[in-house]
């Protein structure tokens, strides 16, 4: 009250009063929205863990290492090793396929491409990221799988498995084409835009003066990239790759279409196997609520959550300088 008497204009304190109520409401709305995210994340972890508890209690640490997944009623045995390994292997395999191409794209866009071409190619990469995963799944099922089966396995299978030392990687009794190789190929195309876009952005952040100095000393383009750009951006590049890895781990629909969904350890790139996300997508609808099978599926989900969390946290950590900028 005393405030209003000292103010020259009588309207100002009233406006301030009304505004501060609004400010408080707005502040609390924003605050609760922020907390909601934390609450949701926590609730998901807790729900998964509670659901997974019966399976963890029944199998203990063996759940991580057992390869037996037997949902037949009366003799249920669940072990997540095949799905966990399938998830990690297909994701790492996809990274191995995607990184060289992503590097090529980033190198082309930052060093080689004429300026008028950078925009359209960059946009095309970003559009690739917008393609729904089910489309990649269909493409994988109808194009990639028959191609692998006919033009690689049936045509070159014997020659490939005759290669000394690494031949066993191609020796498989599975001739359907649906395999960890098909899955890795489809995932690699899906994560390519994320890795390529990150690489292009970090390559662009290399101060021009470093590159120009190197060129001034007579370095070739390749020498500039390998001796200046890569060392300067190394950690951010690894962070971008981890970001792609995070995407690859959780991919469900496209992988389910092409991986063959078999709870068997892979011995060759043409073997069918499964991933955590595929097992959950396939078996969850038919699992009875409260059954050990459902609990084991939730346990797998919990493990996937932990793996993804570690990978994404690592990528955030490695990319921290770039994210701050």
């Amino acid at each position, binding site marked *: 009250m005393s405030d209003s008497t000292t103010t020259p204009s009588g309207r100002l304190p009233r406006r301030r009063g009304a505004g501060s109520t609004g400010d408080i409401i707005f502040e609390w709305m924003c605050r609760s929205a922020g907390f909601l995210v934390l609450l949701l994340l926590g609730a998901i972890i807790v729900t998964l863990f509670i659901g997974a508890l019966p399976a963890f209690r029944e199998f203990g640490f063996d759940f991580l290492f057992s390869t037996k997944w037997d949902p*037949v009623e009366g003799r249920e045995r669940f072990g997540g090793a095949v799905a966990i390994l399938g998830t990690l292997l297909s994701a790492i395999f996809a990274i191995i396929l995607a990184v060289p191409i992503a590097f090529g794209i980033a190198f082309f866009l930052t060093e080689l491409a004429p300026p008028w071409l950078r925009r359209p190619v960059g946009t095309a990469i970003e559009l690739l990221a917008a393609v729904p995963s089910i489309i990649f799944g269909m493409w994988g099922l109808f194009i990639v799988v028959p191609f692998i089966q006919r033009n690689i396995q049936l045509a070159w299978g014997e020659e490939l498995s005759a290669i000394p030392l690494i031949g066993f990687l191609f020796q498989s009794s599975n001739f359907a084409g649906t395999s960890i190789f098909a899955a890795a190929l489809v995932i690699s195309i899906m994560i390519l835009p994320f890795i390529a876009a990150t690489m292009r952005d970090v390559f662009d952040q290399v101060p021009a003066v470093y590159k120009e100095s190197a060129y001034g000393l007579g370095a070739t383009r390749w020498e500039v990239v390998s001796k200046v750009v890569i060392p300067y951006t190394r950690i951010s590049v690894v962070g971008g790759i981890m970001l792609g890895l995070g995407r690859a781990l959780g991919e469900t629909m496209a992988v389910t279409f092409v991986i063959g969904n078999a709870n068997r350890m892979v011995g060759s790139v043409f073997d069918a196997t499964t991933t955590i996300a595929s097992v959950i997508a396939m*078996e969850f609808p038919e699992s009875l609520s409260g059954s050990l099978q459902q609990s084991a599926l939730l346990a797998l989900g919990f493990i996937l959550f932990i793996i993804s969390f570690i990978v994404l946290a690592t990528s955030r950590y490695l990319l921290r300088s770039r994210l701050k900028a």
Partner: protein
Amino acid sequence: MTHGFNRRSLMLGAAALPVAGVAISPAWAQQATITGAGATFPRPVYERWAQAARDPVGITLNYQSIGSGGGINQITARTVDFGASDAPLAQAQLTERKLLQFPTVLGSVVLSANLPGVDDNALRLTPEIIADIFFGRIARWNDPRIVELNRDLRLPNLPVSPAYRADGSGTTFIFSTYLSRVSPEWRAGPGAGTAISWPAGNGARGNEGVSNIIRNTPGAIGYIENAYAVVNRMTTTQIRNKSGAFVKPETPQFLAAAAAADWSVPNFAADTIDLSGPTVWPITSPTYILLPIDPPADKVAASRNTMRFFDWAYRSGSDIARRLEYIPLPDATHAMVRAAWTANVKDPSGRPVWTPGAA
């Protein structure tokens, strides 16, 4: 009266059908809705029955094909009026969940193979060979054991690629039950269930996924529902049945299986797998409805309507079922199911919800 009717028909904009409007509107007024959820396998026949029953019975059925497991979960929670399951529930589960189980139709599972140059229903397989194929023990189609059975066919030197349902499904339950029946080793190994651990081959989602593997892969063989196989013109095989005869997957062989089954077992959990009889197709199975036996007062009408709906389906739905490649049950079985309704489903005051002739 006349005035009101005219205005209504104008509002509906149905000037062309004033007479039909009069005939339909009272029926619509009496429409009762029942909801069911469960097995995907009988969905086509339940939907066609629902369409056909709307006018004569005055019941609208809302059926969600979310899978047998989901159907059991939902009827246990009583969020629907009835559940549907491909695999029969054990007595203990039915007692615990207070459910009555009765069959509606039979379905059959067939084997489909992609062998270039081999005609539909030409390939002959024995149960032992089928089990070995799904164990992954037969590498090539020109294996001497298969050639010996099929002297008249030219079998290609293609790798054998078994295909199976990776999603939990009644079809897998039926087929793995058959394999367990014909092979003791399968019973001790992978076993029988809606989802099992397959020793060899590739998994896909749904009949369409398995069919896609079969179509795409020369040398692939997989099991699918007969209804799906017929509609999509899949190439199927003959199987040697328990009586030693090679049978083709066709309607008379399926009906023979329905007739050969013993339906007087508890909960109608009749065993229709690998029955004896010269014309019996060995892989068939009934699909079931699960109905609460203790409907609370506000659910008694829905419970009665569910039974009225399936009573109508038993009386008038056999043709529809047959057209969709399902196998209708024998009339004697229908009578047994009606008796079970009267004996088991009671309203809160203990009176049977269903009385003969109530429809």
